[in-house]
């Protein structure tokens, strides 16, 4: 849908004139992607000194159905978290305006549009990022250390989930999907037997820190995006999620997002004051992260069988076996050496 004839164009132009200094209107409005829980629009604010590149994140149709997904935070919360992250030095797109009822656009917020690349295929292969790649793992560690230090007393209400909580949540989903995967049961059993102690200190956790949600430039990490499943949990979860094999996009020997080494990620984390990295919890979260992706693939198969006739969704269902081989390599290594 383009700018013209778009029902949000007029109210958005009005909001921008009111809240972006010097703005006289908007231009180049276009929908960037259609997530289930989020609309993302790109546009420019027109000002006498030039175009200001902006993004609108908005609930679909203006309102987020909070009953649909138990894990996504309201957009107002997301904006608040981005501001808190900015305060502790996490690179984020500055929030320009959080929508109110009188804006007539529904729930959402406007933030800066940071130039760069989020597609792993390009970040991992293109010449443009040749200098960024060796730096990224350490930068990710440093940024996560800061993110995990956000003052918990300042946080908006967030879901709190320990390792044990997440295991049980995904076990429930797995059982509801009702298709036998003995390797998944093996992983659930292992996770229950190896859950981090209840005394583990919990912090703000981004929850989806990986390729796709990181804006990268030729010099390195520019911004951490997509805070919609942020919650309070084990900080080791963020350090592990970016290391699961699906996010390596084929670069299996570069555990951190296909671009870097764990040693660099952990060194950056510890140097930036993130505290000691705990190898046992790292492994727990890598197993759980891998299993989560496998259960999500089962969910795709289930959505297909329930009537979503997309060829893409159908074939993603067949990707849960990829996570099974990853889980077997983690839990029952063929070389006798744990991965």
């Amino acid at each position, binding site marked *: 849908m383009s700018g013209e004839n778009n029902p949000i164009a007029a109210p958005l132009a009005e909001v921008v004139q009111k809240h972006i200094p010097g703005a006289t209107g908007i231009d180049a409005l276009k929908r960037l992607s259609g997530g289930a829980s989020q609309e993302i629009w790109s546009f420019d604010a027109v000002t006498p000194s030039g175009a200001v590149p902006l993004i609108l994140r908005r609930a679909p149709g203006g309102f987020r159905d909070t009953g649909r997904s138990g894990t996504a935070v309201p957009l107002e919360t997301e904006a608040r978290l981005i501001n808190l992250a900015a305060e502790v030095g996490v690179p984020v797109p500055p929030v320009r305006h959080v929508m109110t009822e009188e804006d007539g656009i529904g729930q959402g917020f406007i933030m800066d549009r940071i130039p760069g690349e989020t597609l792993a295929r390009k970040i991992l292969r293109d010449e443009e990022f040749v200098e960024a790649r060796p730096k990224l793992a350490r930068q990710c560690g440093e940024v996560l250390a800061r993110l995990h230090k956000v003052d918990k007393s300042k946080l908006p209400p967030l879901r709190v989930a320990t390792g044990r909580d997440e295991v049980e949540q995904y076990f429930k989903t797995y059982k509801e999907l009702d298709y036998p995967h003995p390797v998944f049961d093996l992983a659930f059993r292992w996770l229950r037997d190896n859950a981090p102690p209840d005394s583990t200190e919990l912090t703000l956790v981004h929850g989806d820190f990986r390729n796709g949600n990181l804006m990268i430039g030729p010099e390195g990490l520019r911004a951490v995006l997509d805070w919609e499943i942020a919650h309070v949990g084990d900080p080791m979860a963020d350090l592990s999620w970016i290391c699961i094999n699906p996010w390596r996009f084929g670069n299996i020997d570069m555990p951190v997002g296909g671009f870097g080494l764990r040693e660099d990620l952990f060194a950056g984390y510890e140097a930036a004051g993130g505290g000691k990295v705990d190898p046992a919890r790292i492994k727990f979260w890598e197993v759980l992260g891998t299993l989560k992706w496998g259960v999500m693939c089962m969910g795709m198969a289930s959505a297909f069988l329930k009537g979503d006739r*997309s060829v893409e969704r159908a074939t993603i269902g067949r*990707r849960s076996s990829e996570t099974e*081989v990853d889980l077997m390599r983690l839990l029952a290594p063929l070389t006798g050496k744990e991965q």
Partner: protein
Amino acid sequence: MQDQPSAIELIEVVGEFIRNHAMPQLKGHTAFHALVAANALDIVKRELEIGPKAGDEEHRRLKALLGKDGSIDALNRELCAKIESGEMTLDTPGLREHLWETTLTKLAIDQPKYSGYRRALEEKA
């Protein structure tokens, strides 16, 4: 007995048609979905080639592991329950081998190019 070409040959030619003739005429999302569709046909082809024998072998291993008869679905569900309860573990004779064999076969059909699968084959060798 059906006439020629075989099911596998039919799938191959439809895959070639999508990749070589249809896709170049398509754009954007539709072109992407055509590629996904061609990849899905590759899965079907590999399943026709590998699936029947591998399924029989998996079924035979399940019967031996669990010491009883039943459908492959029922036996897999029972295996899941025994692993979940801790009654069967990686130390149970035959379980580790069964899970590896089954997993590698699934990947050989679903996604033989997957990095984790390629690496597992190297480690097994």
